[in-house]
């Protein structure tokens, strides 16, 4: 076993957690959030929604199955992962597994982190840390090596994270009859895969691109990191699009932006939903689904306009998990129907969207 450097995780309430670095040895800062999923660290790390965040995994054993090769399909979509690179600032675990074992792995998590210059720390009481975040809410935090002032605290929600991770130009995929515009606020590649599987022409546009200038049949608004209030440009484009009555489907950040376009308000959850086991119920039915989630902000149900209603509600805390327009084909989900990582129960929502077009 190689010698590992000691590190300290410092939270902005002054709490300290000591551990060891197993990733790239650099001081980092961001918002500390926890995720209770038991699998899927390669997917989560490459999920652009984690931009600016230090991701705590509550499941203690991490790295077991290594990391698959980062290759890309001819259209530029990653073969196994959710984007081109790791977006999280750091991964924080209890027991990093030095050795991995899997037929599809090409390197260890540690080697990958080092290659992508991302911090990884182990030996942390992640349960104690999670309880702290649960009680005090998500906090700013930093990982330092020798000197506590190596780096300053950063609040990623003050930065336009969407602008950082969105594509910079229009990209077109597929050649299906139905033309779908995908507004990239930090889209996960599995959303693109799920849409392409349904034989569409997909036009991926940057977050602030005025897609109303192009010809399309359906509008999709993706997930993305940070504070939705940074995306007023996108919201106003959506508002314009709504006038056409063409189908709109949003996921995660997309749910929040659609809600904002419909006049609703967004608030920051104390510590967000980041897990594979969030139960949601389709409003007015007995249908319940286990969903994969990753969000720190939520739509305020009480502020939905008269034309709108909640589509899904979280069965644990009653928060909004999706909205729909009462008469027009606009709907969205706060959770991730594309899964990757997480349960695949709600992939049918993509069918619902395509059928509406």
């Amino acid at each position, binding site marked *: *076993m190689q010698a590992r450097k000691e590190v300290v995780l410092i939270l902005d309430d002054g709490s300290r*957690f000591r551990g060891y670095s197993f990733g790239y040895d650099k001081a980092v800062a961001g918002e500390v959030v*926890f995720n*209770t*999923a*038991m*699998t*899927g660290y*390669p*997917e989560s790390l490459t999920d652009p929604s984690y931009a600016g965040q230090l991701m705590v995994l*509550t*499941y*203690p*054993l991490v790295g*077991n*199955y290594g990391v*698959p090769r980062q290759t890309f399909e001819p259209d530029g979509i990653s073969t196994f992962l959710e984007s081109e690179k790791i977006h999280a600032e750091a991964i924080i675990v*209890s*027991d990093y*597994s*030095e*050795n*991995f*074992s*899997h*037929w*599809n792995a090409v390197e260890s998590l540690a080697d990958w982190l080092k290659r992508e210059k991302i911090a990884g720390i182990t030996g942390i*009481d*992640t*349960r*104690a840390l*999670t*309880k702290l975040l*649960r009680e005090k809410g998500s906090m700013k935090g930093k990982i330092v090596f020798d000197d506590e002032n190596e780096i300053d605290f950063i609040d990623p929600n003050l930065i336009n994270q969407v602008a950082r991770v969105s594509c910079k130009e229009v990209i077109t995929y597929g050649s299906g009859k139905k033309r779908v515009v995908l507004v990239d606020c930090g889209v996960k590649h599995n959303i693109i895969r799920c849409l392409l599987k349904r034989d569409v022409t997909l036009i991926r546009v940057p977050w602030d691109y005025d897609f109303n200038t192009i010809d399309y049949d359906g509008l999709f608004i993706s997930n993305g990191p940070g504070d939705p209030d940074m995306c007023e440009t996108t919201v106003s484009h959506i508002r314009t699009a709504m006038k056409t009555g063409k189908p709109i489907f949003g996921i995660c950040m997309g749910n929040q932006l659609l809600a904002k376009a419909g006049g609703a308000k967004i608030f920051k959850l104390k510590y967000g939903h980041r*897990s*594979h*086991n*969030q*139960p949601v*119920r389709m409003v007015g039915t*007995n*249908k*319940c689904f*286990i969903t994969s989630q990753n969000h720190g902000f939520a739509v305020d149900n009480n502020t939905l306009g008269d034309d709108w209603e909640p589509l899904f509600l979280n*069965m*644990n805390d009653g928060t909004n998990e999706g909205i729909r327009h009462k008469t027009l084909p606009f709907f969205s989900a706060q959770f991730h129907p594309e*899964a*990757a*990582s*997480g*349960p*695949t*129960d709600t992939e049918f929502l993509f069918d619902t969207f395509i059928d509406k077009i």
Partner: protein
Amino acid sequence: MDTTIKKVLLLGSGALKIGEAGEFDYSGSQALKALREEGIETILINPNIATVQTSEGVADHIYFLPVTPFFVEKVIAKERPQGILLSFGGQTALNCGVALYREGILEKYGVQVLGTPVQAIMDTEDRELFVKKLDEIHIKTIKSEAVENIADARAAALRLGYPVIIRAAYALGGLGSGFCDNEEELDKLVEKAFSFSPQVLVEKSLKGWKEIEYEVVRDRYDNCITVCNMENFDPLGIHTGESIVIAPSQTLTNSEYHKLRELAIRIIRHIGIVGECNVQYAFDPESEDYRVIEVNARLSRSSALASKATGYPLAFVAAKLGLGYGLFELKNSVTQTTSAFFEPALDYVVCKIPRWDLGKFHGVSRELGSSMKSVGEVMAIGRTFEEAMQKGLRMIGQGMHGFVENKELVIDDIDKALREPTDKRVFVISKAMRAGYTVDQIHDLTRIDRWFLEKLHNIVRTADELETYNQLEALPLDLLIRAKREGFSDFQIARAVLKGGDMDANILRVRMFRKSHDVVPVVKQIDTLAAEYPAQTNYLYLTYCGTEHDIHYLGDRRSVVVLGSGAYRIGSSVEFDWCGVNALNTIRKEGYRSVMINYNPETVSTDYDMCDRLYFDELTFERVLDILDLENPHGVIVSTGGQIPNNLALKLADQGVNILGTSAASIDNAEDRNKFSAMCDRVGIDQPAWRELTSMDDIDEFIAEVGFPVLVRPSYVLSGAAMNVCSNHDELVRFLELAANVSKKHPVVVSQFIEHAKEVEMDAVAEKGEIIAYAISEHIEFAGVHSGDATIQFPPQKLYMETIRRVKRISKLIAKELNISGPFNIQFLAKENAIKVIECNLRASRSFPFISKVLKINFIELATRIMLGLPVEKPHHTLFDIDYVGIKASQFSFSRLQKADPVLGVDMVSTGEVGCLGNDTDCAILKSMISVGQRIPDKSKGILLSTGTAKQKIDMLPAAEQLYRKGYKLYATGGTHKMLESNGIPSTRVAWPDETDAPQALDLLHRKEIDLVVNIPKNLSADELDNGYKIRRAAIDLNIPLITNSRLASAFINAFCQIDLDTLEIKSWEEY
């Protein structure tokens, strides 16, 4: 919820047996709780009297009757329930339910099956239907062919290609199944499988694939969740009950995990389960290819494990869903605020390890395979795999201290031992690693995933590092912390660093050293949501991977800690769970905080609802002290959990722990053979003569005094059973040479063995030396059959009053001498009226639930009140006031233990028991014997008698005569035939396997012409054992009832000849 259902019948699983054990007490108890909460009147049929579910207040009406269609129909006719639950009593209840459905009995009485419909059950149980069902939704199953004769089996195997696996349809936990590499092996296995089932399955073997299980729940609105997935440490080929199992899966990627999850949900929807089921997969380690192995449409061992592993009460929820609830209408019972429709997120790892007792059986095959042999299991929780694994290896209680630092294992051929796994498998891996085998080499030989092996290798590496030090003070602190995080006990560290010496003292040195450096474990909660939501859960474990406790300790000294009984094993099982649960109930009722320490996932005592705090952790001296340091309790109860806590009493007391009730010194005075004998001599209590001897000459000299036979108990056993009765010098020499070592270091205890003596048991509760309540029971068998295997009658029916009086007098003397406050048990030998004490335990015994329930006085409640220092009154009635009889009969699991000789002796071999009530002995015997799998022989078939020694032959004559008069055709081996003939009882002589001059007994058995075998071993001579063994083993393998004791055989034969089953009164417990 369906409000028309007001009365529901639940079928239990009967006696504990291999493949069907305590997990069904847990699931049944949970289901009954769920029903009662709804105000539904509940009826339970379960002859297993030692269970918690058959206790007062769990069900409204309890029937201690066999779970067979005959008896269940009678209960239905009497009680007329509207609903029946079939999925909480294992395969026994499921099979019985399917039979009732097929025979139209459920329809006849208008009984609705709640939860999963019977058709869905049949679709999963019948392999052909099952494969067809899954083919409909394009889900891959293991290629398998159902055959109904041996020729078709051979043809199928040729088509599929060897190796193939043979399974009997509709059989419990892989009964009658196995792998065959060629036709010869196939012929043997198929014949056996056909004896269990008319349908046998031949399947392609997928040895080396991963084995993964999912626990899936579905409600009637089609909402589905998977509560837990689990990965077997051992690859496919070893029955999941024989395998170390890890939850959640460790080597699956997100894509694999969710692929199998999605399939599981598609399967449960298509089959139409309402409630819970288990889906088992074979999973290719080199791709995402899979096969579905099977679906269990009921609660199972795995579901009990999953409930304990996650905190999600599967049985409770399944029962509610059976009543028509939706998952969204139920709450998560841990958080009480979030929904029951969710999937638990674990922030720890769980490791299940099986417990085997193969050493107790003569001749048993120790190889692990597709049929289950383990008798119990443990679950260990940690925040590293290494920690969970090492905890678990200590918990199984077979003298191991973890993965390393154990007694050296002698293995001739490590390669072979790795390739052909036995119950020692994991320790062979340890040995191999220490011998320099690489992870790759071990992987090649075992096909165990490298990830698991690498983790185990970490433990070996840490042990190597620890061993480079010779003093604790020289040990780097981070190495010590790493060792603790990898689950090293103080003992292991002491052995690695301090090497030898007084280990008890060394353990304490390590303890003090680490505490002085603040290296102590932290307490964490199991909360189902990985700390995402606040939970008031009291479900706890300890780990070194953490910096802070989840629990805030008040230090109010209001806790009373009950030490549980650990893994179920031969000699200690559900009866001690009942004792523990009753102690907890009493503690709670009296206003103390009830705290349980136990680690057996099959139990009710490890249900976090049963106490105020549950520490799901080790019962080692180290861990118990760790917990007591935190709990700072009022006191500790060591007398309700069997021998494990009993053995800790003195050591804990030495550390200043307040042992409640009888003092640790008194416990020691009873446990220590010399001290106990000295006391008996002092007060004039007789014992069989015994001596602790260190040489053959001394042994001969002692035997010259007392004569043969003698009971020999070596302190160091090389192989085989720990005790033996020797009738002559040859046997003695053979036993001591083969099985034991006699030396100064390893003395042998030799006791006089009294033949044809009755064995009498005293179970009692005393307060400050005065007996408050007692129960005297008698064994049907003469002494020589272990009390755990004997058939016990209570109240005694055939004891002299004088004997009873003397037993009472001696018991009073002992209670007074040892100043007992709490439960105790004394075993006596009675011959004429001479009474000798053979054993005394100052703790609850195996028979406490039996006598408590028959007498309707809760002895544990009384004992617990006494231990808490509360006033108690002597009960108003005694055994002399009850006008019915209870019979406790033993359940054997020989059919699962390939090649084991199914004989009874001084070492216990039964895996479970039942207790039935009747208006007289015959009624109770009949019910209890049917409950343990005996059946009334079919008159179209015969009965085979080989009745042992001359004396036993004479003893058996009246029974044989009754059989003859009743019209049974009798077959008998030579001597027995002669004896019957000279007494005017006709029989057909058959030949022993080594004779050739008459029809072969074995042929008759194979032709299914025999429906009961009475085979009494005459002596321990090699020929006798071999001949008899072949017949006994054939009976077991061909599923023909076998009795090997003349007194029990007579009692059973007498009962079924005297009584017509149809005339038996069907009475619930409260009606007696």
